[in-house]
């Protein structure tokens, strides 16, 4: 379905030459650091970073990789918007990208809830009202630390991982969208 030369091609269309293309791969790179630092924190438990300088550093890596992940992803999304990158049967590529973004917000949010510090006390106290107001809080209880921890380290990362993988496969399958008004005319060839 997706041969290696399409998954990892050695050439790209001539128009794939802009700073904006960096942000997609930068988002992926940041996601790798988010996952790696998250796995290290998972090994030692949610309270480790309170009592260990090594744990605190890993927590810092987790925080900053998440911050960069979102910065890169937002620039990537804006870039794709102004490129109208959904053209040419690429709507699902856009949709998987946006849903990845929204799911990542939920994943990061549950991370803030399981910091086991003042911030998570306050955020859970505030967020419960919004979720309760539309009935979601009855099932997704932000003051239930155990439930949020499992959402953060298991369920939501799996969903994000699946969506990102799907998104990348679609990008490679459909190819990079050509510039608006591009034509395969003799002048260009």
């Amino acid at each position, binding site marked *: 379905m997706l041969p290696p030369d399409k998954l990892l091609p050695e050439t790209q269309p001539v128009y*794939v030459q*802009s700073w904006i293309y960096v942000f997609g791969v930068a988002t992926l790179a940041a996601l790798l650091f988010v996952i790696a630092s998250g796995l290290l924190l998972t090994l030692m438990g949610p309270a480790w970073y309170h009592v260990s300088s090594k744990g605190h550093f890993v927590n810092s890596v987790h925080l900053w990789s998440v911050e960069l992940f979102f910065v890169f992803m937002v620039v990537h999304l804006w870039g794709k*918007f102004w490129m109208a990158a959904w053209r040419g049967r690429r709507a699902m590529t856009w949709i998987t990208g946006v849903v990845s973004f929204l799911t990542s917000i939920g994943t990061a949010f549950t991370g803030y809830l399981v910091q086991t510090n003042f*911030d998570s006390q306050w955020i859970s106290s505030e967020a419960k009202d919004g979720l309760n107001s539309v009935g979601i809080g009855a099932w997704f209880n932000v003051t239930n630390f155990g439930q949020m921890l499992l959402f953060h380290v298991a369920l939501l990362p799996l969903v994000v991982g699946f969506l990102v993988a799907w998104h990348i496969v679609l990008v490679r399958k459909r190819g990079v969208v050509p510039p608006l008004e591009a034509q395969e005319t003799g002048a260009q060839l």
Partner: protein
Amino acid sequence: MTTNQTTEHRPTPRQRHQANSIADRPWTGPEREYDLLKEFVIAIVVVGAMVLGLAAVFSSPDEKSLTLKAWSKSTPNDFTATAAAELAGTSVSESELGAPYNTTGGNQKFGPFGLQKAAGVRIPVDSVNNFVITPLSSLPPAAPLSDALTQWKAATAKQQQAWGGAYSDALAEPAADGDPAKVATGDYGPVPVLTASLLGMAQSGALEGVIQGEGGFYTTNYTKSILFLADGAYLEDHAVAEHLGGDQWGMMNETASYPGQSWMWLYSFWYQVEPFKSSGNADALVWVLMMVLSLGFVLVPFLPGVRSLPRWIPIHRRIWKDYYRTQGSSQQ
């Protein structure tokens, strides 16, 4: 018949557009060398250096969690007023929150739709008993607390609320200024003894474990502890001091000067402006609005007008400026 066949095989304008659209077909124009693997490795190295550098230089915030012990010791009057409000049934958790905790609070609505109420009481919280009476009942029976508990349990709900309400009002009087020692004489029943005992229990550090332990030996659910903490002013005062209040762009901020969840700016934004700011249904309104906007964001490729913005505002000319400059004057 012939006419019909001809019509069937004639491409529609949309099909003609798609057939002619370069975006629909694999690119057969000029290409350039592009090593994706190399690009990815460089990205990992550069992003890795940025992450490790930021972590090493700026670290990360970790302000210790608040405790009921610290609350009761640093602001005992606020703690006592909260305990009295629990007994009066006027605390936030009892009188305002509603579902999924209880049926005594108000529920928010979006127009005629009451999604909060429809969800039902799935996480029951009985503020009077969970936060005050049950913890006090766990203490060794001794007067005057045992007598106060007996008197409280024997009274009707109406009488209990009257005692609690009267004591709450008395604490709020300017002459008392929240200090139980300055409260005027009145018919408060056992409430002053109950609140004073709860204050002592909290100051000893025993209350937190008892409230949390109501869920059993293993418990990872902090709903009751956080609801009780949030009923007082202590938690919010701390948050406001850390610029985390609802009218300070709330939880998208982070303690100290660290960047928080800035990606939630739009969600926080609505709470800062009318009609959401002063609406009793602000949460429901903002949530429904955000769900609609999120759906719109997902469906941008199909939204007339929105999907045409990139053509009308030619930012793509800057993104692909090399292409437009080098690949034919017909693009200009």
